[in-house]
C-alpha cells in the first residue's frame, strides 16, 4: 500500500473508502499463507494431542510447547531480527494469532506472552533491556507476563493502582510493594512487566524477574474456562528491582499500558476469528452427522439459518479486523526498528487506529460468543456435555469480552476517541455533521440513483449508516456538550453504530474486491454473506438511532430528528431467507467457514 494515501484512523466515517486502501485476506502473500499453514500444522500436530495435559496446567508441557513454538518462529514475529525475532509485518502476526486462536487455552498463554508480555520491551525497552530480554522471549525459553490489574484497579487500572515503587537509599533499586491480580502466565512466567506508582505518583512500568528478591506468585484462580492458562496474583514484598529495569521513562506507564493494549485488542480479534471458525467447523460437521426425524439436522432451515448467520458474522469480523491490521501496517511502513525513536513513532502509528482496535476487540469477541453459543445449540444436549468440544469452546470464549479492556470500556473508547479528534480538528466530524443537517431536509431516499453494478445498494447503505452515526453523534454532542461523557447509554449505542458501519463497509469492500478478482459467479458467496449480514444489522441501526434520539429530545424536535434518522436508514429488506440458505449450503459443502486462503 506504499504509494496510496493511508486513511486516517476513524476517517472511514467521513465518506467512501478507496478499496485499494482496504487490505483483504485474499491479498495474503505466499509467505502469509505458509505462515498460516505452519501455525495450523503446529496446532493440529503438537497442541491438540497435548490438550489434556495443557488443561491440567502441566507446567512442563506448556513450557516445552512454548519453546517449540519459539523454535518455529511463532513467538518472534513482532520482535526485531537483531534481538532474535523476525520483525515481520502485522498481517503475519495476525495470521499466527488467528490459527493459534484455535488452540483454546494455549492461545491465551501464547497471546499474553507475545503480546502484552513481550511488546512493552519491543516498543519501550532501551537497547540493553532488549538485548537482555527479547532473545529468550522470542525463543520461548522464557515466558513473559503483564501485571497491570489489581484487586482495586481493573478497568481503572491507572487511577486504582496501589502498587508502590520507592528508590532504595543507595539508589540502585526500586523497592516495589503491592499485589497484582489475574495475571496470565503468572504461574510459569520468568519475566513480568509490572506497573507501579513511583512515590505514589508517577505511574511507571518495570521489568521484574521472578527470581528478584521479594517476588512471588499466588495460587491459581479457578476459572470458568481457559483452564489450561495460568492466572495468579503477583506478590511484591519489598521486591528489589534494579533501577535499570525501569521501562521507558518515569511516569510514562500509562503510555505503555494504553499502546500495548491497542495491539492486544486487534490481536484478540484475530484469535477470536480463529476460535469462531473452529466452532463453525464443529457445528457444520455435527449438523451433517446428526439425524433426527429421519434426516440430518443440517437439512432443517432453522439449523441452516444458524450456520449462515455464524458464517456471515465471522466474515464481517474477519473483513474488519484484517482491514484494520492492513491500516496499521501501512501506518508503520517506513518506521525502522533501528530508529532510536522507534517505540514512540510505532506506538503513535498504532494509536492512530485506536478506534479500529477497539472495534476489532468488541466485534471479534462478540462474534465469537455468538458463534460458540449457536454451536452448543446445534449440538443439542451434546453441546452441554464435555464429551464434545462445543461445551468447552463456549466457556473458553467468555473471557474475551472481559480482558484487554472490557467491552464496555472499549465501546466508550470509540466515541470518546472520535470526539476527541473532532474537537482537536483532526477529524472534521463536526463539519460533516453540520453539512448533513443542512442536507437532510432535502434528502429523499426515493431520489437516490444507484449505478448498475453488483452491491451498489449495499455500498450506498453502508454510506448511509455512516451518515446516521454522524447524525446521532452530532446531535448528542450538541445536546450534552461536555456532559456527553455521562450519557453512557447513548455512547454505547453510538459505539455500536460505529462498529457496524465499519463492519458493513468492510464486508462490501471485500466482496467488491472479490468480484473484481474472481468475477461475479465465483464471488457469489462474498456477496451473499455481505447482504445477509447487512440485512440483519441495518434494521438494528435504526433502533439504536431512535433509542438514542428518544433519550435526548422530545416533542416536535424528536419527531423531526426521527424523520431524519428514518430517511437516512430507509432500507428495503432483502430475501434474507434465500441468502442464508445459499450461505449455509456453502458452509455445509466446505465443512465450515466457506472461504479459505
Amino acid at each position: 500500500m506504499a504509494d496510496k494515501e493511508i486513511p486516517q484512523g476513524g476517517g472511514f466515517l467521513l465518506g467512501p473508502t478507496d478499496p485499494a486502501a482496504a487490505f483483504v485476506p485474499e491479498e495474503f502473500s505466499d509467505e502469509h499463507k505458509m505462515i498460516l499453514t505452519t501455525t495450523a500444522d503446529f496446532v493440529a500436530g503438537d497442541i491438540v494431542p497435548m490438550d489434556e495435559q495443557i488443561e491440567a496446567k502441566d507446567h512442563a508441557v506448556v513450557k516445552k510447547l512454548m519453546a517449540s513454538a519459539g523454535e518455529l518462529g511463532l513467538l518472534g514475529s513482532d520482535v526485531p531480527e537483531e534481538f532474535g525475532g523476525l520483525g515481520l509485518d502485522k498481517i503475519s502476526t495476525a495470521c499466527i494469532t488467528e490459527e493459534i486462536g484455535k488452540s483454546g487455552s494455549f492461545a491465551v498463554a501464547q497471546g499474553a506472552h507475545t503480546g502484552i508480555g513481550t511488546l512493552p520491551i519491543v516498543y519501550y525497552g532501551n537497547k540493553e533491556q532488549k538485548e537482555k530480554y527479547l532473545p529468550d522471549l522470542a525463543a520461548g525459553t522464557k515466558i513473559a507476563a503483564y501485571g497491570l490489574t489489581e484487586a482495586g484497579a481493573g478497568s481503572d487500572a491507572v487511577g486504582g493502582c496501589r502498587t508502590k515503587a520507592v528508590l532504595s537509599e543507595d539508589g540502585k533499586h526500586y523497592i516495589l510493594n503491592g499485589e497484582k491480580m489475574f495475571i496470565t502466565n503468572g504461574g510459569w512466567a520468568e519475566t513480568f512487566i509490572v506497573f507501579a506508582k513511583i512515590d505514589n505518583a508517577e505511574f511507571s512500568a518495570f521489568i521484574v524477574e521472578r527470581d528478584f528478591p521479594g517476588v512471588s506468585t499466588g495460587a491459581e484462580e479457578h476459572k470458568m474456562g481457559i483452564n489450561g492458562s495460568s492466572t495468579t496474583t503477583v506478590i511484591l514484598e519489598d521486591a528489589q528491582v534494579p533501577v535499570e529495569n525501569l521501562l521507558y521513562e518515569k511516569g510514562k506507564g500509562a503510555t505503555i499500558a494504553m499502546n500495548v493494549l491497542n495491539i492486544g485488542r486487534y490481536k484478540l480479534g484475530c484469535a477470536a476469528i480463529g476460535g469462531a471458525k473452529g466452532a463453525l467447523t464443529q457445528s457444520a460437521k455435527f449438523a451433517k452427522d446428526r439425524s433426527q426425524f429421519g434426516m440430518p439436522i443440517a437439512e432443517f432451515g432453522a439449523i441452516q439459518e444458524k450456520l449462515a448467520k455464524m458464517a456471515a458474522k465471522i466474515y464481517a469480523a474477519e473483513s474488519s479486523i484484517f482491514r484494520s491490521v492492513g491500516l496499521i501496517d501501512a501506518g508503520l511502513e517506513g518506521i525502522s526498528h533501528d530508529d532510536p525513536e522507534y517505540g514512540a513513532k510505532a506506538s503513535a502509528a498504532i494509536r492512530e487506529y485506536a478506534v479500529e482496535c477497539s472495534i476489532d476487540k468488541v466485534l471479534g469477541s462478540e462474534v465469537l460468543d455468538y458463534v460458540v453459543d449457536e454451536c452448543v445449540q446445534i449440538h443439542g444436549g451434546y453441546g452441554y456435555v464435555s464429551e464434545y468440544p462445543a461445551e468447552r469452546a463456549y466457556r473458553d470464549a467468555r473471557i474475551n469480552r472481559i480482558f484487554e479492556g472490557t467491552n464496555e470500556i472499549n465501546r466508550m473508547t470509540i466515541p470518546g476517541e472520535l470526539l476527541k479528534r473532532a474537537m482537536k480538528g483532526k477529524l472534521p466530524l463536526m463539519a460533516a455533521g453540520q453539512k448533513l443537517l443542512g442536507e437532510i431536509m432535502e434528502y429523499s431516499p426515493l431520489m437516490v440513483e444507484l449505478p448498475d453494478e453488483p452491491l451498489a445498494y449495499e455500498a450506498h447503505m453502508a454510506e448511509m449508516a455512516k451518515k446516521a452515526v454522524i447524525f446521532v453523534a452530532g446531535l448528542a454532542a450538541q445536546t450534552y456538550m461536555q456532559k456527553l461523557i455521562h450519557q453512557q447509554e447513548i455512547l454505547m449505542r453510538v459505539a455500536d453504530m460505529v462498529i457496524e458501519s465499519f463492519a458493513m463497509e468492510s464486508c462490501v469492500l471485500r466482496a467488491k474486491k472479490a468480484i473484481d478478482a474472481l468475477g461475479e459467479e465465483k464471488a457469489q458467496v462474498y456477496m451473499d454473506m455481505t447482504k445477509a449480514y447487512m440485512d440483519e444489522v441495518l434494521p438494528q441501526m435504526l433502533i439504536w438511532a431512535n433509542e438514542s434520539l428518544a433519550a435526548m429530545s422530545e416533542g416536535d424536535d424528536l419527531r423531526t430528528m426521527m424523520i431524519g434518522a428514518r430517511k437516512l436508514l430507509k432500507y428495503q429488506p432483502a430475501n434474507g431467507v434465500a441468502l442464508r440458505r445459499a450461505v449455509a449450503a456453502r458452509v455445509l459443502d466446505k465443512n465450515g467457514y466457506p472461504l479459505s486462503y
Partner: protein
Amino acid sequence: MNIVVCIKQVPDTESVIKIAGDGKSIDTGDIKWVMNPYDEFGVEEALRIVKDQGGEVTVVGAGPARVVEALRTALAMGADKAVHIQDDDLYGADPIAVAKMLAKAIEPLSPDVVFFGQRAVDDDSGVVSSAVAEYLGMPQLSVITKLEIADGKVKGTRPIEGQTVVLEASLPAVISAQKGLNEPRYASLPGIMKAKKKPLETKTPADLGAERSDFIEIATLNPPPDRAPGKTVEGETAQELAANLAKLLKEEAKVI
C-alpha cells in the same frame, strides 16, 4: 551429497473432492493444494542427510503455476533450490509422461540420490518413481522406512507383513519413501522468509526437450457410493438382539 526430491502437489486430504463436468477430472475450484504427504518424508530425509554429510537439496515439481507453492514449502523446510516444470495440462496426465519430464529435468542435476514419496495420495498410481529410475538408469529402493547412506552405498529397509527386508544398492539411486521413515519438520517462519530468496527456476517441457507422450488416459472418475443409512438391530432380549445382529452380519453385510 547431491540430492533431488521430486514433489507432487495434491489436494489436501481435508478438501471436499467433486468430479468435474467432464467426468474425468476433479473440480479444482475449491481445493486447497498441498505437498503430497509422502513426499514430505523425502524432503525431511534429504535435509537430514545433507545436515550430516553436507551437500545440496534440489526439489523438482511438475504441473501448473500453483505447484510453485509446494516447492516453496520445501524450500521453507530447508531445501536449497527448486526447479518447476511448468505445464498447465499435466495434472491427471499419464504418470509415464510425467516421469519422462522429471527425468529430463533431473538428469542434468546429476544427483547421488533421488527421493520420491512411495505414492501420491490423489491418484495412487505409484508408478512415477520407478519409471524415473528406469529412465535415469538407476536402481530403486521402494517403500523405504529406514535409510542409511555411506561409502557410496545405500541401504534401505522395507516392512513386509510384520517382517522387514533390507535392500542395498550403490549410488546413485532412487528411493521412494514410506510413512515411518522420519517425522517431517514444519516449515519454520525463519525458513519461510529465507525461502523467498532461494533460487526457483521455471522450465517448460520444450526447454527440457521433453515431449508429452501419454499412453493411458483417465476414462472416468467415480465418486464413492453414498453411505447407506445405519440400521438399528431389533429385539427384546439380549439373545434376540444377538441373533438378529448375527443374521444381519451374515445376510446383509456378508462379513461372517
